């Protein structure tokens, strides 16, 4: 058996004979959204449970993180009992809005249920090392307020949010979006009251952070919390609390025996081996969609479906690190990709993740098999019994799509036509020529939306129409900084980047020249031009020359992140670094001054 510890961000292993101070069946690392439910569920299934938590309470982001509000997700299972018990107590504490809960009531209820289930709780405790033999996690070393303790366990349920135990063990992981390796923005919440007296967690994005990097986490803690400072604190708008926990949306994704990808989500893949379903929209908090994946932009920018609900079937393999035993992953760090994660991270769904992992651990221990060898039927039966997995006839079905061509054309004529645009993508060849006809229409909406739909079908005939849309700024892209989150107006620009035809360069350059300080407009135009130059070597030098002219002045390009107008992000250095990365890959020089404004930009420059 080896002791695996993280030393300065790298895993180091020590061989030796190790002894343990105590033993349990299931050790739950992190008693947050998923871990709290995992500890209760495992205890109820007869497991000897030890729960380890860095803070002094259970509940994670919903309690200590101040997000005491359910946003999408699916009800069912053990969480319903928790929520009902919270509802019964709210009147004694403070009123909350529907779909909200009082964080301190939930802390109390979760703890009460965990103790009732026989779980031992170690607060103020963090993981120091894991013990591994034969690709199986056998125990953990925990730093508690009383000192270090070693615990032998049959299963670790890693609900630490960033998969600390799995990372120490050496489980493979992925991280961030492809363009700059960074996750979604994070938040730091403060407690306020609404006019109706209901307790409310004021949430806003505070910037970007790499949860794996201690210096970056420390910086983010200080800078985000300083954003709560006000000129004046008044009785009308008091701060009841500042959340003691950072609101991280995204971190490591452990690569599992199975993975749910964004392709699974948007293609509505149904699975026989599902153990639950999730329900959410594509809740990506980025403002700079130009740097997101094509699939994400097809969905949210071209088809404008940011708010459309998505049902996703979840298989058990996303909770099992690939080729590992003795460890299960619960929480946001399960096996997803950056895009699928945007809709598979809601609190209700994460609570179910905890219940599923507890059930998998209990069944694997009872059958004495690795979790990956668990037969699916008993697992599904147990989860249907608890209500975590609905019975087949009660399962969520994806929202219906338009299929009738005349109905589709009618919706394409409307101002908001995303449903029809994506319906065309689904129909593919069956509607391609109709779309081409409609794209010649004199009706503005029909012409434009048909062109976007053809763009989703990657039909190059549409390029001149898209170029015309951009050249005339038909979609009214803003040129000065404003709090504009409607990405659909960039559909034509993005698609021109996808088609990457040199003929589009003049329209894009001309429009970029008109942008004053709007970073969102600048980012889409910039990326389209870089993609075109990337695909057309003979135009690279010219494009770079034009970009040099656009970005050489003392320009500012400002981007507002979600709900945070007071602290907009300056993007001009990010843009310059992005250009340099392309220029480097082309073997061309980019001589503009580069001064990274944050860690993300510094890493981009280094890479």
């Amino acid at each position: 058996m080896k002791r695996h510890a993280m030393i300065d961000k790298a895993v180091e292993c020590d061989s030796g004979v190790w002894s343990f101070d105590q033993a349990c069946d299931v050790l739950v690392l992190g008693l947050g959204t998923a871990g709290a439910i995992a500890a209760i569920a495992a205890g109820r299934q007869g497991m000897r449970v030890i729960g380890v938590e860095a803070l002094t309470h259970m509940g994670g982001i919903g309690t200590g993180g101040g997000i005491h509000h359910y946003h999408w997700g699916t009800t069912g299972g053990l969480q319903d009992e928790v929520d009902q018990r919270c509802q019964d107590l709210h009147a004694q504490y403070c009123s909350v809005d529907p779909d909200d809960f009082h964080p301190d009531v939930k802390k109390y209820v979760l703890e009460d249920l965990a103790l009732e289930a026989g779980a031992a709780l170690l607060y103020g405790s963090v993981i120091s090392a894991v013990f591994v033999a034969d690709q199986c996690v056998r125990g953990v070393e925990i730093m508690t307020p009383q000192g270090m303790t070693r615990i032998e366990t049959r299963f670790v349920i890693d609900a630490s949010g960033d998969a600390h135990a799995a990372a120490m063990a050496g489980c493979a992981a992925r991280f961030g979006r492809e363009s700059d390796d960074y996750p979604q923005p994070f938040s730091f919440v403060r407690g306020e009251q609404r006019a109706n007296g209901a307790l409310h967690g004021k949430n806003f994005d505070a910037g970007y952070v790499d949860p794996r990097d201690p210096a970056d986490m420390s910086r983010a803690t200080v800078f985000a919390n300083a954003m709560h400072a006000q000129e004046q604190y008044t009785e009308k708008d008091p701060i009841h609390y500042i959340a003691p926990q950072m609101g991280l949306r995204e971190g490591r994704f452990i690569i599992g025996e199975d993975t749910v990808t964004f392709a699974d989500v948007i293609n509505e893949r149904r699975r026989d081996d599902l153990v639950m379903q999730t329900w959410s929209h594509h809740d990506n908090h980025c403002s700079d969609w130009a740097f997101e994946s094509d699939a994400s932009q097809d969905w949210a920018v071209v088809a404008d479906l940011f708010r459309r609900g998505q049902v996703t079937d979840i298989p058990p393999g996303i909770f099992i690190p690939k080729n590992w035993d003795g460890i299960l992953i619960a929480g946001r760090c399960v096996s997803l990709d950056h895009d699928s994660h945007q809709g598979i991270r809601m609190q209700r769904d994460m609570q179910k993740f905890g219940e599923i992992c507890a059930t998998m651990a209990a069944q694997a221990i009872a059958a004495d098999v690795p979790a990956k060898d668990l037969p699916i039927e008993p697992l599904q039966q147990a989860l249907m019994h608890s209500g975590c997995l609905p019975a087949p006839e009660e399962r969520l079905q994806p929202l219906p799509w338009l299929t009738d061509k005349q109905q589709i054309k009618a919706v394409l004529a409307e101002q908001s036509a995303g449903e029809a645009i994506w319906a065309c993508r689904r129909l593919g060849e069956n509607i391609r020529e109709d779309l081409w006809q409609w794209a010649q229409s004199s009706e503005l909406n029909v012409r434009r939306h048909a062109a976007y739909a053809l763009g989703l079908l990657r039909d190059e005939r549409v390029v001149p129409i898209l170029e015309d849309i951009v050249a005339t700024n038909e979609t009214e892209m803003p040129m000065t900084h404003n709090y504009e989150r409607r990405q659909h107006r960039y559909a034509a620009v993005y698609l021109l980047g996808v088609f990457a035809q040199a003929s589009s360069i003049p329209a894009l350059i001309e429009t970029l020249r008109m942008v004053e300080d709007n970073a969102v407009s600048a980012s889409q135009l910039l990326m389209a031009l870089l993609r075109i130059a990337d695909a057309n070597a003979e135009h690279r030098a010219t494009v770079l020359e034009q970009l040099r002219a656009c970005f050489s002045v003392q320009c500012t390009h400002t981007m507002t992140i979600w709900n945070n107008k007071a602290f907009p992000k300056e993007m001009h250095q990010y843009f310059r670094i992005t250009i340099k990365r392309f220029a480097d890959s082309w073997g061309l020089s980019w001589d503009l001054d580069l001064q990274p404004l944050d860690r993300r930009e510094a890493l981009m420059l280094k890479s």
Partner: protein
Amino acid sequence: MQDTCYETAIIGSSALGLGCLLSRPENSILIEASASICPEWSQSFYPGTDWDTWDTCDNLQPTAAALLAELRQRQVLTGHGLQVSALAAQCFKALRDSTANYRFLSVVTAVEDAGDCYSIHILNAGGHQQLRARQIIDTTDEAVTLPQQAVSVQSRAVGMQLQIGGEPMAATAVTDAYHLHPGAFASEATLQYHVAPDTDWITARRQLHDFWINRPSELRAWNCVSVATRFSQRVTALGSIKENWHHLPGCNTANAIQAFNQGICAAQSMEVLA
């Protein structure tokens, strides 16, 4: 990180620790396990006492006087009391605007005497790390730089942030069970519910919950908007642990400004030592 030897490592982001850090930002580093600042006030909701005696205090250092004035000007501190969360926001802002070194979300796991300095082992998102410092000022209640719990807790309370449901009312009451402090505004108050000094969080939360559900009639008009995540407590300060290694718990002062001031004074005396 290992290569840097700081003059002083300040353990704990208490108001005392912050005062110490901001007095000598360039060659000190603050190490804090949590994501909070001044947690002995901001996360315990204990507003402190004796706020009105500071203007005439001889020992008030200019930086502390400036912070006190700012808290008053921004209505963090009013004639009624203190908004503890706003205090934290202002202190984070002061830290952001400084040149100080800090490492939040980092747990101290051990301290070793390395001859001419101390080697401080910390555990955080990057795993185990070490840094070196010639002096240590441990401002945590628990003296986390020592391997075992060595601090004796003299008194302990768990706090609640309250908001009035109807017309504001006098928010001062002292009983054997609790102490009700007025907030910065008439609609706010903080309750400090007394528990035995050795009470853990599970027991304290249960006792507080039972008390609150069955609370006396004079508290019925109040809503609980938040429960503290730190105890407010008094502990036995260990003072000098070894040469250049001190335990000065920030929780033992009357209020945050006194603690901040004490931190500045401690930094000045350390400079003499250095």
